[in-house]
């Protein structure tokens, strides 16, 4: 089948998803979306992407299956330990001066980043005064995040990362192992609100002191990245902090002037006042 036809089918499917279900992937970086939709077509056994579109338009139960391809659920606890170390050493000392705090983990996926931050805040004595918002567009990922259960064979890497991030406690203090799974402690999510929120179609919902949005915007095209960054700027309190993934930056953004480089190598920015 000519590539041009596949590209057209993808365009139409994304339009259909938007109009029918209000999921807007139209301005996601197309090359990766294409790879994953072609994979969905082949693995779910459809002859064409148009056939997949026909199905999802008429059968809402197909939507979650497609969302699993359209969103990428790859995460890790304390992913890029130096980022968490920089939060611990450079950002949290500033946050300690506030009596109450709000932290937003945008694109929280299956929760690894949420538990990492919760543990970090506990270790630094800030957990009890903090309210965490964990948001994502994938309902299954949100449910997994709220459950906080991970395969035991991933714990070794998580533990290693936690140590490298300057962890003051032992990760094993925070989970119980049973039947090949690590179940993370309820106390870590006592102060976490999990909710559906899209950086593409939704608005500001609270004033934040720290926003961590990692490895989400690389899936967006430039204009969409700008929208998300504008949303973050509008959501941040005076001198609030924004942390991005290690290969994401504000360098090319229209909002670059709205932030200063707080920890340069770690993609941690601070809202700059006009």
């Amino acid at each position, binding site marked *: 089948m000519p590539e041009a036809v596949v590209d057209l089918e993808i365009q139409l499917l994304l339009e259909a998803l938007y109009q029918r279900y209000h999921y807007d992937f139209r301005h996601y*970086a*197309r*090359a*990766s979306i294409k*790879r994953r939709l072609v994979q969905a077509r082949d693995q779910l056994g459809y002859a064409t992407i148009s056939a997949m579109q026909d199905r999802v338009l008429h059968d809402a139960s197909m939507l979650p299956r497609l969302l699993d391809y359209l969103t*990428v659920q*790859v995460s890790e606890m304390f992913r890029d330990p130096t980022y968490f170390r920089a939060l611990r050493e450079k950002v949290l000392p500033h946050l300690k001066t506030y009596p109450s705090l709000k932290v937003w983990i945008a694109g929280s996926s299956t929760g690894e980043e949420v538990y990492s931050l919760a543990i970090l805040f506990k270790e630094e004595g800030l957990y009890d005064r903090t309210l965490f918002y964990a948001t994502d567009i994938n309902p299954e990922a949100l449910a997994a995040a709220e459950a906080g259960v991970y395969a035991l064979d991933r714990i070794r890497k998580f533990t290693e990362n936690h140590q490298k991030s300057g962890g003051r406690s032992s990760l094993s203090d925070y989970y119980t192992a049973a039947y090949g799974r690590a179940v993370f402690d309820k106390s870590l999510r006592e102060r976490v609100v999990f909710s559906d929120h899209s950086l593409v179609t939704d608005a500001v919902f609270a004033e934040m002191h720290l926003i961590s949005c990692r490895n989400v915007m690389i899936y967006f095209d430039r204009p969409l990245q700008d929208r998300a960054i504008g949303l973050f700027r509008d959501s941040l309190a005076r001198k609030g902090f924004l942390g991005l*993934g290690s*290969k994401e930056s504000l360098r090319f953004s229209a909002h670059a002037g709205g932030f200063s480089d707080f920890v340069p190598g770690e993609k941690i920015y601070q809202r700059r006042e006009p």
Partner: protein
Amino acid sequence: MSGASPQSPAQAIVIGASAGAVQALLAILPALPASFPLPVLVVVHVPPDRDNVMVPLLQTKCRLIVKEAEDKEPVVGGTIYFAPSDYHLLVEADGSLSLSTDEPVNYSRPSIDVLFESAADAFGEGLVGAILTGANHDGAAGLKALAEAGGVAIVEDPAAAHSQAMPLSALEACPTAAVMTLDAIASYLSSLGTAR
């Protein structure tokens, strides 16, 4: 089609290498002339926790700009881009680059297949791709896609390669690819973009 003679002027080069990559790339990239007009996109398998040592090394040896690819940057001729470790590198239809943390492909992130397939989509007949030494099978599907899109497919001569598994599986998937030694690849690529 494949065979080392492009139907239309080349627009970009993609290269994939794994075990033995350093020596192989040192035989090719420093040979490219300062006036080389095309962008070169490279995926090398390196352990995820290791910073890309390839970039600083090749910066000292090459006449072209060598850098780690950044998300959404436009590709520019005369520049050699390396996929950062632990991220896939993709080419968008408008010729800009994207990074992604999608699952590993062929146990690899970055994956050669991911780069080659997206580049084949973006550049079509204007793409020249080479699979070099390596001990796995990444790149085979990508080279096939490249050839099917009308690009020029090249495989390092397995008999001379440090590790032959990757060139062999690329040849199996794409039998029409031109088989060349590293020196031949270097001089062929150097000739691209100069008046023919």
